[in-house]
């Protein structure tokens, strides 16, 4: 099988010049411009990643090394994971992580389920009243969260959800912006495919499940990523709703360690910060391509 495929290729005359696999440096422009470009790139790299990298390095320092002050060095002399063990012992980080995970799972689940169903229906022209739904969704996006949070808190209080993780999740269980994003993705599915699916006898649910959802998986990923990050990183709303230590999310717990007057070792707090960045960073590395798409599609389509 393989030889049969390879043969014609081998017989091809070497008429074309062999192409270089890698371009040479001079293909990228004048040397001086290149040097300036790379110098600038590394300069910005230092500014953007530097503080976070410093945090990571400091978290690896042993207790004998200064984090601050004139004697502090950049690199840890004896890298140790002691601070990571300590952060779990001194601070209920495991509880914080559990709480953050609960909020993230609830948010991602509900956002995905409800933004796809609502987005699907809104992409269909054949029902009355969808314009009214549209108006309500757009209207709900007009009010900045900060200008309605007092009233939101009173609602959560009346529901008895103060100091409850459900109260953190509930007000944003499905976002209008995600519904609009899913609708745009479903609208992009060619009508002809749906028509042929219908000729084959696929019902509405089957078309939604087996045709529309797979076609829109880029948008689904964008919704997942955005929801994950905003739920994981959120601060102001959990700060308002949550009170007790057992209910705190990771960002909330970390913010309470902020001042060293609490008596916490800075290396330990930095270890906590690093732990909180890791899940988002992993998600980013896995889904990088769609990540960028999410940013631009948010701009272009909506």
């Amino acid at each position: 099988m393989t030889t049969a495929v390879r043969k014609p290729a081998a017989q091809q005359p070497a008429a074309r010049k062999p192409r270089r696999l890698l371009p040479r440096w001079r293909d990228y422009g004048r040397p001086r411009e290149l040097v300036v470009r790379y110098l600038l790139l590394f300069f910005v790299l230092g500014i953007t990643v530097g503080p976070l990298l410093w945090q990571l390095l400091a978290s690896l320092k042993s207790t004998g090394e200064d984090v601050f002050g004139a004697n502090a060095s950049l690199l840890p002399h004896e890298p140790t994971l002691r601070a990571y063990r300590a952060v779990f012992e001194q601070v209920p980080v495991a509880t914080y992580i559990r709480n953050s995970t609960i909020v993230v799972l609830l948010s991602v689940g509900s956002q995905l389920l409800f933004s796809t169903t609502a987005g699907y229906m809104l992409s269909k022209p054949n029902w009355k009243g969808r314009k009214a739904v549209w108006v309500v969704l757009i209207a709900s996006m007009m009010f900045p969260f900060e200008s309605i949070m007092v009233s939101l808190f009173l609602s959560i209080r009346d529901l008895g959800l103060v100091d409850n993780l459900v109260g953190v999740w509930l007000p944003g269980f499905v976002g209008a912006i995600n519904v609009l994003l899913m609708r745009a993705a479903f609208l992009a599915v060619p009508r002809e495919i749906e028509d042929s699916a219908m000729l084959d006898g696929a019902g509405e649910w089957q078309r939604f499940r087996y045709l529309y959802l797979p076609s829109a998986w880029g948008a689904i990923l964008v919704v997942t990523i955005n929801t994950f990050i905003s739920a994981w990183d959120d601060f102001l709303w959990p700060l308002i709703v949550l009170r007790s230590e057992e209910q705190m999310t990771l960002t909330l717990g970390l913010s309470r360690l902020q001042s060293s007057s609490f008596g916490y070792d800075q290396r330990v707090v930095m270890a906590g910060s690093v732990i909180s960045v890791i899940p988002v960073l992993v998600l980013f590395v896995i889904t990088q391509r769609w990540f960028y798409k999410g940013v631009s599609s948010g701009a272009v389509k909506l």
Partner: protein
Amino acid sequence: MVTDTAKPVSVPGTEQPVPGTAPSRIGRFGRALLPGPAPGANGAALYRRWWLPWLWTAPAIVCAAVFGVFPFLNTLLLSFTDAKPLGGAASFVGWSNYTRMLEDSDFWLATRNSLLYALIVVPLMVLLPLLLAILVEKNLPGIGFFRSAFYTPVLASSVVVGLSWQWLLADEGLINTSLEKAHLIKDAIPFLSDSWLILFSAMGLTLWKGLGWYMIFYLAALGNVPKELHEAAAMDGAGAVRRFWHITVPGVRQAMMLVGTLTGIGSLRVFTEIYMLGSATGGPGGADRTLPFYIRDVGLDPLTGNAGYGSAVSVALFLLTLGLTLLAQRLTKEDES
């Protein structure tokens, strides 16, 4: 057998069940939840069960109405009462929350801080990410790494980057010790104790965290600027700066307008940066509080809070946001014509 899978194209008589087309795996109850089209008047078939689309969209409608539109109307209402954040009887107090607000110097201070924030952050946030996008636009070896690396501050939560900056800017922090070592300063710069410096540090933090996000935004826009224009201009001897102002900027003008609008609205929402750098009080004596910070302080404090007054400040914040949005829309329109 009832089927919900008639073709949406209007053909008289397709209301009749089409045999063999109903999904069988989901059972009768499941099928009842499915939208099934019936012939409509104008080409598109309407769902025979008129409530099915509503069922599919109900969660989104409920969320938008109950946690979006209602809280706003309720905020308007609350602003005329003296409701307490922890409950209890509330009574109408007329316009007194608003008159109190107009005489409240802390409110004006918060408004000034928020507006100053927008005034300084917006132009920088419109320009700096654009320059960064131009820097990473060209496909050089390793450029993917740089793009991703520049994006990392976006991923970290404001709390984490706030902690990081706190340590950088502390009296004993990296920046102060480096400057002292270089003999540029004698005493540490009080980044975290002087109210003006806290405000500017927070702006720096906002900018730093937003750079990567808007860089990606601009990268998409830069893709639409024709390369030929740049080449032609370069042939005619136009330098990089002139090409930037006369080709790149007009090419991405729309994106710049959008970034300006978004960052303007974002500046009015700043909270965490101030909380992290200026501590939970919002700077010395609350001098660095922004409007959201002030709303939380006066409206939601469990002991001394007054949700009525907090709502009045919330209305002010909403009006500011609305004004900014309308201004941006007007500018965009003028720009287009």
